[in-house]
């Protein structure tokens, strides 16, 4: 393990010579004389650009979408039977709200989603913990979950009807299923991504197995879990489209499927917009959670 000093004709000297021809032979007494350097200022951030509030900037995208849609509609590129104009849709939405069908649909669906989210959250995180924390758990749990997660809902509905009947149970089961897998995948990946050094530190501090999970592994897996949650929140509503095909007469998924069956394109679009808002809402919830739970995390925030 010796340190060799670069001879004067080493490749390293080449680099310096090509880039700065004035960097001449070293002297024993001090640095070589240098030409004046071009200095550049470090520009403080505060003087760089004015700040537009966050929420305003984030509405840009949706507003742009809306403007595009209105534009296409009014120029006739999108004809009414393809996609009704925002105005028309707003009117239909107004009708749906005033006759209470949209609100009641949302209420019904919300209950189902809440149930499914709760169950799926528990199962997904639970399985992820088992598979993430223990090798043996991984061996037993992971492969079946990886198999089940790609199994389509539609194929399972008949089985679910047989197993769970046609009440609320199969609907919640379907949502649960949808919620479970994204959470599982992300929490599992999160757990397996926790820095081994921190685990060691936790062990050396005398944390019990559960303490290690609670204080080290779960917080370390939290960023991953948040991504999973973001996905799950979306999926839980999407699963309604299937869940509410089974003996439902209200709910946003039912509304959607019914509108589809009776060719009510405008209602479909209203549903799509409701879904889009649910997506935004989910994002808002997760962002708020992240701000709260991940404030310890100094990471890249974009330029």
């Amino acid at each position: 393990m010796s340190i060799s000093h670069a001879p004067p004709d080493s490749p390293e000297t080449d680099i310096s010579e090509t880039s700065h021809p004035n960097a001449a032979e070293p002297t024993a007494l001090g640095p070589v004389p240098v030409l004046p350097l071009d200095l550049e200022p470090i520009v403080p951030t505060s003087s760089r650009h004015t700040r537009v509030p966050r929420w305003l900037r984030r509405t840009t995208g949706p507003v742009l979408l809306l403007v595009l849609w209105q534009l296409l509609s009014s120029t006739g590129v999108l004809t009414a039977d393809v996609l009704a104009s925002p105005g028309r849709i707003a009117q239909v939405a107004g009708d749906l709200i005033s006759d209470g069908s949209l609100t009641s649909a949302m209420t019904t669906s919300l209950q189902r989603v809440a149930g499914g989210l709760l169950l799926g959250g528990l199962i997904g995180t639970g399985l992820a913990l088992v598979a993430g924390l223990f090798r043996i758990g991984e061996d037993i749990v992971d492969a079946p979950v990886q198999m089940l997660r790609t199994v389509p809902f539609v194929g399972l509905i008949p089985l679910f009807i047989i197993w769970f009947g046609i009440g609320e149970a199969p609907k919640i089961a379907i949502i649960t299923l949808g919620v479970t897998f994204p959470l599982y995948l992300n929490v599992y990946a999160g757990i397996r991504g926790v820095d081994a050094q921190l685990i060691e530190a936790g062990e050396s501090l005398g944390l019990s197995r559960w303490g290690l999970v609670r204080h080290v592994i779960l917080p370390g897996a939290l960023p991953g879990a948040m991504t999973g949650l973001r996905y799950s929140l979306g999926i839980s509503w999407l699963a309604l489209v299937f869940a509410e095909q089974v003996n439902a007469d209200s709910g946003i998924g039912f509304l959607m499927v019914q509108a589809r069956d009776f060719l009510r394109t405008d209602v479909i679009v209203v549903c799509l917009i409701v879904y889009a808002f649910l997506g935004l809402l989910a994002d808002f919830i997760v962002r708020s959670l992240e701000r709260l739970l991940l404030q310890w995390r100094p990471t890249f925030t974009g330029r």
Partner: protein
Amino acid sequence: MATDVHRPVNHQVTEEPTAEASTAEEPKRDASKAEAPRPAQAVRVEGLTRSFDGRAVIDDLRLDVRAGEFVALLGRSGCGKSTLLRILAGLDRDIEGTVLVPRRKAVAFQAPRLMPWKKVWRNVLLGLPGKPARAVADQALGEVGLSHRTDAWPKTLSGGEAQRASLARALVREPDLLLLDEPFGALDALTRIKAQRLVGELWQRRGCAVLLVTHDVEEAVLLADRVLVMDEGVIAHEQAIDLDRPRDITDPRFAEIRGQLLERLGVDTAAEAA
């Protein structure tokens, strides 16, 4: 809020500090400067302020480094040395004040900050212009005694090895301003001496300005043209080291300067016992 950085260079700053600009803590402006009249500047900092959560860690700081000058920066843990370095490196722009630095800078951070997904030798070459050959990295790593670990993943390095890899990564860049944040802290005595020598050689050959943050007063006196002590957000003390090079630790003047600096740092040299 921010000082306008585009104002014409204030002529009074470089050489003749006015009465109100020079603090009481700035004695001996000195011989080393007199040797080269109006030398080129490598760093100009004026009125620099950096606050975290309302606490000003750097508070109206003023710093000039001549091109080719070797400056050591001492100071209590947490006094803002790394913050200053990050600002000089252009990595922290949440500041007020004027900061002028050369374009070609190289930094060795306090933590090694190697990219864990790149083998050690790739880390060394990262960001170098052109398509540098692996031999360049191998040589640089050889110089810091890491020939046998060039092909390792950074996370398998020992603490000192990682620090040396990080140092090699900075040295191979041949910059105009070299910013070193406690680069020898995790090295054993022998390896440390070799690494110090390496930095000294690069400095002499390249003629770059060096700002070395260190906690080792001996090291500072051994290597630097000028030693700064940071405290309360400003350069509280400045000491030119006008000893001849190569310097001798046993030289009584060496011990004297060392003692003075230690005293500045609050260490009562007589009480160095556990």
